[in-house]
């Protein structure tokens, strides 16, 4: 029997991100005088805000065991819609934003419908939805980047300076706090975690599984909508930025799940992950000036994060990660060898229940 782990420890695993962050900062400060400046601080902070918003939104369905791969496309759609509502339909900024956020929520609701009612694996449903959204975007824009609204209030919305930081960074922090509150301090967050941990156990404990998975996807759609609007105001209505942010967002979410509370997707771990990656990328960029760094960094980080999480879990003496992503799309095999049996306290059942949702009405 393990003792409770109340030993004083450096937390080399839980806080490895923070250590790495500190190492980056020391290293690059020594390496180049360009690095340790307030300009770098401000540009890294707000430069990651949009990706950060997307990441914390993504966390909500991930906690509930569902993927939302359409967040990039959703952000793209709202980035364009919020501009077109202003320029083509002459709506005010406020209304354009409200309608675009609602559009993001609607996309999330459709995702939820596909996953919960049609019982399509969330991975597949949202991947396909991303493709459909990309097609719709081409239809509505004729594949031409619309020109941004001329109203200076529109760009001030995210670029206003607050203590040196662009205000979009503050938005990111606010959204992160809200998502953290939902995930860690409400029954909703607990229900989603339970569903993500064991769908069947959740259902048999009286948790309305379908409802919460649906809500989680609406949340990620809504927040992706916000990310799109922010990006549109910050950088202009690009047709492509969203897809480029999808992988970094997933990398940060998974890397974040190895931090602070290892094994759990969590907001502040992900925030740390985002900024550790960004600091490293920024630093190496100063030093080398090459273009491929960020793709390489994010890709390697995603692989390393998932591999590390799995290794950590197995090292802890468990044969299978309860939520093994590779098993999630496979069916449980019925091997009598692994059937739990009396007198055998280590019998391990095969794999996790599927991620696809059993809905109850």
């Amino acid at each position, binding site marked *: 029997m393990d003792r*409770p782990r109340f030993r004083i420890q450096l937390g080399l695993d839980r806080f490895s991100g923070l250590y790495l962050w500190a190492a980056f900062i020391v290293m690059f400060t020594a390496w180049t005088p360009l690095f340790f400046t307030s300009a770098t601080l401000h540009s890294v902070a707000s430069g990651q805000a949009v990706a950060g918003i997307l990441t914390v939104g993504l966390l909500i369905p991930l906690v509930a065991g569902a993927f939302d791969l359409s967040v990039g496309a959703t952000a793209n759609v709202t980035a364009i819609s919020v501009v077109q509502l202003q320029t083509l339909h002459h709506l005010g900024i406020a209304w354009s934003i409200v309608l675009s956020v609602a559009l993001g929520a609607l996309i999330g609701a459709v995702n939820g419908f596909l996953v919960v009612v049609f019982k399509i694996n969330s991975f597949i449903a949202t991947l396909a939805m991303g493709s459909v959204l990309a097609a719709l975007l081409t239809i509505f824009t004729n594949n031409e980047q619309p020109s941004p609204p001329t109203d200076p209030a529109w760009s001030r919305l995210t670029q206003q300076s607050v203590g040196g930081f662009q205000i979009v960074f503050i938005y990111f922090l606010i959204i992160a706090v809200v998502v953290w509150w939902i995930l860690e301090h409400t029954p909703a967050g*607990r229900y989603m975690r339970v569903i993500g941990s064991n769908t*069947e156990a959740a259902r*048999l404990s009286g948790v309305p599984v379908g409802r919460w998975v649906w809500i989680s996807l609406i949340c990620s759609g809504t927040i992706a909508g916000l990310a799109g609007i922010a990006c549109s105001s910050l950088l202009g209505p690009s047709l492509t930025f969203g897809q480029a942010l999808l992988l970094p967002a997933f990398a940060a979410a998974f890397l974040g799940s190895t931090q602070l509370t290892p094994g759990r997707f969590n907001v502040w771990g992900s925030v740390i992950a985002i900024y550790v990656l960004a600091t490293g990328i920024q630093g190496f960029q100063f030093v080398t000036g090459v273009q491929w760094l960020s793709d390489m960094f994010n890709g390697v980080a995603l692989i390393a994060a998932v591999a590390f999480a799995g290794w950590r879990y197995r090292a802890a003496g468990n044969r299978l990660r309860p939520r093994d992503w590779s098993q999630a799309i496979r069916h449980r095999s019925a*091997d009598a060898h692994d059937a739990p049996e009396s*007198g*055998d306290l280590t*019998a391990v059942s095969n794999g996790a229940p599927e991620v696809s949702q059993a809905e109850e009405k």
Partner: protein
Amino acid sequence: MSNQPSALVAANVSKSFGGTQALVDFSLTIAAGEVRALVGGNGSGKSTFIKILSGYHRPDSGAQVVVGGVTLSPGDPASSRRSGARFVHQDLGLVNDASVLDNLAVANGYPTMAGTVRGRASRAAASRTLDRVGLTIDPRIKVERLSAAEKTGVALARTLAGLSDGEVKLLVLDEPTATLPANEVRQVLRMVHAVAAQGVGVLYVTHRLDEIFELGASITVLRNGHRVLDGSSSDMTRHDLVRHLSGSELDDARDEADHTAKVREDLALEVSHLRSAQIDDVSFGVARGEVLGISGVTGSGREIIAGLIFGRERSTGGEVQVSGRRIRAGQPRESIRNGVAFLPADRKVESGLMDLTARENLTISSLREFWRPPLFRRRRERAEARAWFDRLGIQPAGGEELLFSKLSGGNQQKVLVAKWLRLRPGVLLLDEPTQGVDVAAKAEIHHQLLSAASTDAVAVVVTSSDIDELVAICHRVLVLRHGRVAAELAGEQITVAAVTKQTLVSDGSGQQILSEVL
């Protein structure tokens, strides 16, 4: 055959899990061509022994296992396979929508020419293999079209496929007939003898008593990890067997059940004409304060009835009433709202949240009392979890914040029992509540169930394959057979012998013989 080495010589095999000894200094010898029945109740250690033979478990040091003259390296499945040990598990592991031929060839390959399967040669080879177990079926038909006994035969044949006589030394069958009707059991037994006649030692694990005598085999009985009986079926009566299968460990629970029984008049749960795929018209009622046991072999409906009442899956007919109110089928949430709680048998798959903390597992059944928007009262939740840990003696004390997967099986199960007791249910359904649980935790869980019944007037329904357990804690026992209630025992009638007899007898003829003996 005397010049052949023994099929199996196992000596001093022990295995402990944590603090629990699943198998204690067990020895077993099987000669080539011998059929040996290994009998034991739940948790007796028989499956642990099989898993040691297959290399899945590593025995405690000092054990020696020799198969066909080759000493196994412990915990190494490849070594077990090389030595000539083969296993047929209860679920057979056949691919149902593939042909018999493909099922046989999957393990051992097809005869090929230039990488192309030679159809006729494959079929001929398959037929020869089927011959060896005495099966004459066309290897081209799909497995799903076979009878249950024929499927078992294919699984047997598969262990021999591609190997000449004498290469397979030991064949282990793990409850091959658990779900078979009586007439098909005989066919399986014939096939087992056909294989043994080729010089293969057969270890036949079962808990059906009537077939042991038909098998005409030597018998080894395990109980709580100890060998309690070893002999030939011709030298012993069923009575001996039943006596040896049951023990006296649960006398305390029996005492408590007898002395605290306070069965009320009114029914908390009424099940009428319930039907589903495996349940064929079951009706019964449970009074408040009563502990009702449901026995039955695997396949009798025992393992699904509790879930069906709760709404884990939808019934196809009949109804469930709780305190006079009808509950819609297949609705766990509605059942819970009406005061019905259900603890499934499979912790890892159906009830445990392995990567969450013990506290989160315990409180998930209701979070309302901790939620004062906009704040979740974590401290109050922790206090409640700690109180339940104390009340059920869950170890380690103060382990509420540990991951659930870090607790031992017994403590996990106690957490899950507490999770439902917290809701103060009117009806508590439990499927195999003490499966894979150590003796101390078992006693604690039994005590909790009995005290819930007597002091809180909960109607408790326990479905269990552990007859000792049912006899220890139940005021009344129903026996299911083929999805129907075949017998009902109450009060003094509930003895291990009587419940065993009603549970294990599979057809009328067996019952006659048995009733003479018992």
